Protein backbone atom coordinates (compact mmCIF):
# COMPACT_ATOMS: atom_id res chain seq x y z
CA UNK A 1 0.00 0.00 0.00
CA UNK A 2 1.07 3.59 -0.46
CA UNK A 3 2.98 4.60 2.62
CA UNK A 4 3.28 8.08 3.98
CA UNK A 5 5.83 9.01 6.59
CA UNK A 6 5.67 11.65 9.31
CA UNK A 7 7.45 14.01 6.94
CA UNK A 8 5.01 13.39 4.11
CA UNK A 9 1.70 13.56 5.97
CA UNK A 10 0.94 16.84 4.20
CA UNK A 11 1.46 15.10 0.84
CA UNK A 12 -1.15 12.54 1.86
CA UNK A 13 -3.65 15.26 2.81
CA UNK A 14 -3.12 17.03 -0.51
CA UNK A 15 -3.40 13.78 -2.50
CA UNK A 16 -6.67 12.89 -0.76
CA UNK A 17 -7.99 16.40 -1.42
CA UNK A 18 -7.37 16.03 -5.16
CA UNK A 19 -8.48 12.39 -5.30
CA UNK A 20 -11.91 13.46 -4.03
CA UNK A 21 -12.13 15.89 -6.98
CA UNK A 22 -10.50 13.85 -9.70
CA UNK A 23 -10.54 10.11 -9.00
CA UNK A 24 -13.05 7.29 -8.57
CA UNK A 25 -13.69 5.76 -5.14
CA UNK A 26 -11.32 2.87 -5.72
CA UNK A 27 -8.41 5.16 -6.58
CA UNK A 28 -9.33 7.39 -3.63
CA UNK A 29 -8.88 4.42 -1.30
CA UNK A 30 -5.52 3.56 -2.91
CA UNK A 31 -4.35 7.17 -2.58
CA UNK A 32 -5.41 7.21 1.09
CA UNK A 33 -3.34 4.05 1.72
CA UNK A 34 -6.44 2.05 2.67
CA UNK A 35 -5.97 -0.59 -0.01
CA UNK A 36 -3.26 -1.56 -2.48
CA UNK A 37 -3.06 -1.59 -6.27
CA UNK A 38 -4.13 -5.09 -7.32
CA UNK A 39 -3.93 -5.11 -11.11
CA UNK A 40 -2.78 -3.21 -14.22
CA UNK A 41 -5.98 -1.19 -14.50
CA UNK A 42 -5.64 0.10 -10.95
CA UNK A 43 -1.98 1.01 -11.56
CA UNK A 44 -3.00 2.88 -14.71
CA UNK A 45 -5.83 4.67 -12.84
CA UNK A 46 -3.43 5.79 -10.10
CA UNK A 47 -0.93 7.03 -12.71
CA UNK A 48 -3.63 8.93 -14.62
CA UNK A 49 -4.76 10.48 -11.34
CA UNK A 50 -1.23 11.74 -10.67
CA UNK A 51 -1.12 13.73 -13.91
CA UNK A 52 -4.65 15.11 -13.42
CA UNK A 53 -3.60 16.18 -9.91
CA UNK A 54 -0.49 17.88 -11.29
CA UNK A 55 -2.57 19.87 -13.81
CA UNK A 56 -5.15 20.92 -11.23
CA UNK A 57 -2.49 21.83 -8.66
CA UNK A 58 -0.69 24.12 -11.13
CA UNK A 59 -4.00 25.83 -11.92
CA UNK A 60 -4.77 26.18 -8.21
CA UNK A 61 -1.30 27.60 -7.54
CA UNK A 62 -1.76 30.18 -10.30
CA UNK A 63 -5.09 31.19 -8.78
CA UNK A 64 -3.56 31.46 -5.32
CA UNK A 65 -5.72 28.64 -3.97
CA UNK A 66 -4.50 27.12 -0.71
CA UNK A 67 -4.91 23.37 -0.41
CA UNK A 68 -4.96 21.87 3.08
CA UNK A 69 -3.46 25.12 4.37
CA UNK A 70 -0.54 24.97 1.92
CA UNK A 71 0.28 27.50 -0.75
CA UNK A 72 3.34 25.66 -2.05
CA UNK A 73 1.45 22.70 -3.50
CA UNK A 74 4.19 22.11 -6.10
CA UNK A 75 6.59 20.95 -3.39
CA UNK A 76 4.15 18.28 -2.22
CA UNK A 77 3.08 17.15 -5.69
CA UNK A 78 6.77 16.54 -6.49
CA UNK A 79 6.98 14.39 -3.35
CA UNK A 80 3.84 12.53 -4.46
CA UNK A 81 5.48 11.65 -7.75
CA UNK A 82 8.25 9.90 -5.82
CA UNK A 83 5.76 8.19 -3.50
CA UNK A 84 3.56 6.89 -6.37
CA UNK A 85 6.43 6.02 -8.73
CA UNK A 86 8.43 4.39 -5.93
CA UNK A 87 5.51 2.22 -4.88
CA UNK A 88 4.45 1.19 -8.39
CA UNK A 89 8.06 0.25 -9.18
CA UNK A 90 8.33 -1.75 -5.97
CA UNK A 91 5.18 -3.79 -6.65
CA UNK A 92 5.91 -4.40 -10.34
CA UNK A 93 3.78 -1.82 -12.13
CA UNK A 94 6.39 0.66 -13.34
CA UNK A 95 5.55 -0.16 -16.97
CA UNK A 96 1.99 1.07 -16.40
CA UNK A 97 3.38 4.30 -14.90
CA UNK A 98 5.74 4.72 -17.88
CA UNK A 99 2.99 4.17 -20.45
CA UNK A 100 0.72 6.77 -18.86
CA UNK A 101 3.68 9.16 -18.63
CA UNK A 102 4.32 8.75 -22.38
CA UNK A 103 0.80 9.99 -23.12
CA UNK A 104 1.28 13.28 -21.27
Amino acid at each position, binding site marked *: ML*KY*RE*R*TVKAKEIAIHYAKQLADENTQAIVAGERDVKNNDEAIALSIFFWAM*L*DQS*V*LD*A*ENGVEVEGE*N*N*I*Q*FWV*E*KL*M*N*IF*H*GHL*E*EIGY*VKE*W*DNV*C*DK*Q
Partner: protein
Amino acid sequence: MEDGKYVEQFKTVDDIRDVINTLIEEYRNAKKGKVGVLFRVKVPPNSSTLYKEGHQGNFRLVQGVRVGDYTFDKNSNFEWVLEDREAGLSFSKTFSHLKGKQKMLSKHAMGYQKPGPADVAWWILESNELPDGMEFVRDPDDRSHYFLAVTRRMHISKLVENLKFISFRMNLAKDISFGV
Protein backbone atom coordinates in the same frame (compact mmCIF):
# COMPACT_ATOMS: atom_id res chain seq x y z
CA MET B 1 29.36 30.42 -16.01
CA GLU B 2 27.64 28.10 -13.60
CA ASP B 3 26.62 25.26 -15.86
CA GLY B 4 28.57 22.43 -17.40
CA LYS B 5 28.75 21.51 -21.07
CA TYR B 6 25.86 20.73 -23.42
CA VAL B 7 26.92 17.51 -25.12
CA GLU B 8 23.54 16.30 -26.48
CA GLN B 9 20.20 17.70 -27.55
CA PHE B 10 16.72 16.21 -27.78
CA LYS B 11 13.19 16.98 -28.93
CA THR B 12 11.47 14.48 -26.68
CA VAL B 13 13.03 12.80 -23.69
CA ASP B 14 12.64 9.49 -25.55
CA ASP B 15 15.19 10.82 -28.07
CA ILE B 16 17.89 10.50 -25.44
CA ARG B 17 16.66 7.23 -23.95
CA ASP B 18 19.67 5.41 -25.41
CA VAL B 19 22.14 8.05 -24.23
CA ILE B 20 20.77 7.81 -20.71
CA ASN B 21 20.54 4.02 -20.63
CA THR B 22 24.08 3.68 -22.05
CA LEU B 23 25.42 5.99 -19.33
CA ILE B 24 23.55 4.01 -16.67
CA GLU B 25 24.87 0.70 -18.03
CA GLU B 26 28.45 1.93 -18.45
CA TYR B 27 28.77 3.40 -15.00
CA ARG B 28 26.79 0.69 -13.23
CA ASN B 29 29.26 -1.86 -14.56
CA ALA B 30 32.20 0.31 -13.61
CA LYS B 31 30.93 0.54 -10.07
CA LYS B 32 29.94 -3.14 -9.81
CA GLY B 33 26.24 -2.61 -9.48
CA LYS B 34 26.37 0.56 -7.44
CA VAL B 35 24.87 3.83 -8.63
CA GLY B 36 27.33 5.31 -11.12
CA VAL B 37 25.47 8.20 -12.69
CA LEU B 38 22.55 10.34 -11.56
CA PHE B 39 20.36 12.63 -13.67
CA ARG B 40 18.73 15.94 -12.88
CA VAL B 41 16.11 17.92 -14.77
CA LYS B 42 16.56 21.69 -14.89
CA VAL B 43 14.31 24.34 -16.34
CA PRO B 44 16.18 27.25 -17.99
CA PRO B 45 17.23 29.91 -17.11
CA ASN B 46 17.99 28.11 -13.85
CA SER B 47 21.34 26.35 -13.65
CA SER B 48 21.53 22.64 -12.88
CA THR B 49 21.74 23.32 -9.16
CA LEU B 50 20.77 26.95 -8.47
CA TYR B 51 17.58 28.88 -9.21
CA LYS B 52 17.14 32.39 -10.56
CA GLU B 53 14.72 34.82 -8.90
CA GLY B 54 11.30 34.55 -10.56
CA HIS B 55 11.92 30.99 -11.78
CA GLN B 56 11.71 29.04 -8.52
CA GLY B 57 7.96 28.46 -8.23
CA ASN B 58 6.32 29.24 -4.90
CA PHE B 59 9.55 28.86 -2.97
CA ARG B 60 11.46 31.47 -1.04
CA LEU B 61 14.92 31.77 -2.56
CA VAL B 62 18.12 32.29 -0.56
CA GLN B 63 21.11 32.97 -2.82
CA GLY B 64 19.63 30.69 -5.49
CA VAL B 65 18.72 27.87 -3.06
CA ARG B 66 15.02 27.08 -2.61
CA VAL B 67 13.85 26.95 1.00
CA GLY B 68 12.25 23.51 1.07
CA ASP B 69 14.95 21.82 -0.97
CA TYR B 70 17.26 22.22 2.03
CA THR B 71 16.54 22.56 5.73
CA PHE B 72 17.57 25.91 7.12
CA ASP B 73 18.23 26.84 10.71
CA LYS B 74 15.36 29.30 11.00
CA ASN B 75 16.98 30.95 14.02
CA SER B 76 19.96 31.93 11.90
CA ASN B 77 17.94 34.09 9.50
CA PHE B 78 18.54 31.52 6.73
CA GLU B 79 22.32 31.74 7.09
CA TRP B 80 22.91 28.14 8.13
CA VAL B 81 21.77 24.92 6.45
CA LEU B 82 21.21 21.93 8.71
CA GLU B 83 22.26 18.33 8.14
CA ASP B 84 19.27 16.50 6.67
CA ARG B 85 19.54 13.20 4.81
CA GLU B 86 15.94 13.36 3.57
CA ALA B 87 16.17 16.72 1.81
CA GLY B 88 18.16 18.08 -1.08
CA LEU B 89 18.06 18.61 -4.81
CA SER B 90 16.33 15.80 -6.71
CA PHE B 91 18.26 13.33 -8.85
CA SER B 92 16.95 10.35 -10.86
CA LYS B 93 18.69 7.00 -10.98
CA THR B 94 16.56 5.41 -13.73
CA PHE B 95 15.19 6.49 -17.09
CA SER B 96 11.66 5.84 -15.83
CA HIS B 97 12.02 8.30 -12.96
CA LEU B 98 13.83 10.86 -15.09
CA LYS B 99 11.17 10.71 -17.80
CA GLY B 100 8.40 11.41 -15.26
CA LYS B 101 10.33 14.29 -13.75
CA GLN B 102 11.11 15.79 -17.15
CA LYS B 103 7.46 15.58 -18.24
CA MET B 104 6.31 17.03 -14.94
CA LEU B 105 8.63 20.05 -15.11
CA SER B 106 8.18 20.64 -18.85
CA LYS B 107 4.37 20.39 -18.94
CA HIS B 108 3.67 23.67 -17.14
CA ALA B 109 7.17 25.22 -17.29
CA MET B 110 5.86 28.64 -18.37
CA GLY B 111 2.58 28.46 -16.42
CA TYR B 112 -0.60 26.40 -16.50
CA GLN B 113 -0.75 24.41 -19.76
CA LYS B 114 2.17 26.42 -21.11
CA PRO B 115 4.91 23.88 -21.66
CA GLY B 116 8.55 24.83 -21.96
CA PRO B 117 11.99 23.27 -22.23
CA ALA B 118 13.39 21.12 -19.43
CA ASP B 119 17.01 20.07 -19.91
CA VAL B 120 18.67 16.96 -18.52
CA ALA B 121 21.98 17.13 -16.65
CA TRP B 122 24.02 14.28 -15.20
CA TRP B 123 26.69 13.70 -12.61
CA ILE B 124 29.11 10.79 -12.98
CA LEU B 125 30.02 9.64 -9.50
CA GLU B 126 33.31 7.95 -10.23
CA SER B 127 34.73 10.91 -12.16
CA ASN B 128 33.91 13.49 -9.52
CA GLU B 129 34.06 13.64 -5.79
CA LEU B 130 31.31 15.55 -4.05
CA PRO B 131 32.41 18.37 -1.75
CA ASP B 132 32.74 17.56 1.97
CA GLY B 133 29.44 17.62 3.80
CA MET B 134 27.38 16.57 0.78
CA GLU B 135 26.20 13.11 -0.29
CA PHE B 136 23.73 11.47 -2.59
CA VAL B 137 21.20 9.72 -0.35
CA ARG B 138 18.46 7.38 -1.56
CA ASP B 139 14.90 8.61 -1.01
CA PRO B 140 13.09 6.23 1.37
CA ASP B 141 9.96 6.72 -0.80
CA ASP B 142 11.52 5.78 -4.15
CA ARG B 143 14.62 3.70 -4.84
CA SER B 144 14.99 5.48 -8.22
CA HIS B 145 15.22 8.90 -6.58
CA TYR B 146 18.15 10.46 -4.70
CA PHE B 147 18.62 13.61 -2.69
CA LEU B 148 21.80 15.66 -3.03
CA ALA B 149 21.82 16.04 0.74
CA VAL B 150 23.71 18.22 3.19
CA THR B 151 25.24 15.80 5.70
CA ARG B 152 27.04 18.37 7.82
CA ARG B 153 25.72 21.77 8.94
CA MET B 154 27.11 24.40 6.62
CA HIS B 155 26.85 28.11 5.92
CA ILE B 156 24.63 29.08 2.97
CA SER B 157 27.63 30.62 1.17
CA LYS B 158 29.45 27.26 1.40
CA LEU B 159 26.41 25.38 0.10
CA VAL B 160 26.14 27.79 -2.85
CA GLU B 161 29.87 27.37 -3.58
CA ASN B 162 29.42 23.58 -3.48
CA LEU B 163 26.36 23.65 -5.74
CA LYS B 164 28.22 25.81 -8.29
CA PHE B 165 31.12 23.36 -8.21
CA ILE B 166 28.74 20.47 -8.87
CA SER B 167 26.79 22.27 -11.60
CA PHE B 168 29.97 23.18 -13.48
CA ARG B 169 31.02 19.53 -13.57
CA MET B 170 27.77 18.15 -14.98
CA ASN B 171 27.17 17.41 -18.66
CA LEU B 172 23.85 18.36 -20.17
CA ALA B 173 21.39 17.49 -22.90
CA LYS B 174 19.46 20.48 -24.24
CA ASP B 175 15.70 20.26 -24.73
CA ILE B 176 15.07 21.76 -28.18
CA SER B 177 11.38 20.81 -28.41
CA PHE B 178 10.52 24.50 -28.42
CA GLY B 179 13.29 25.67 -30.76
CA VAL B 180 17.06 25.89 -30.34
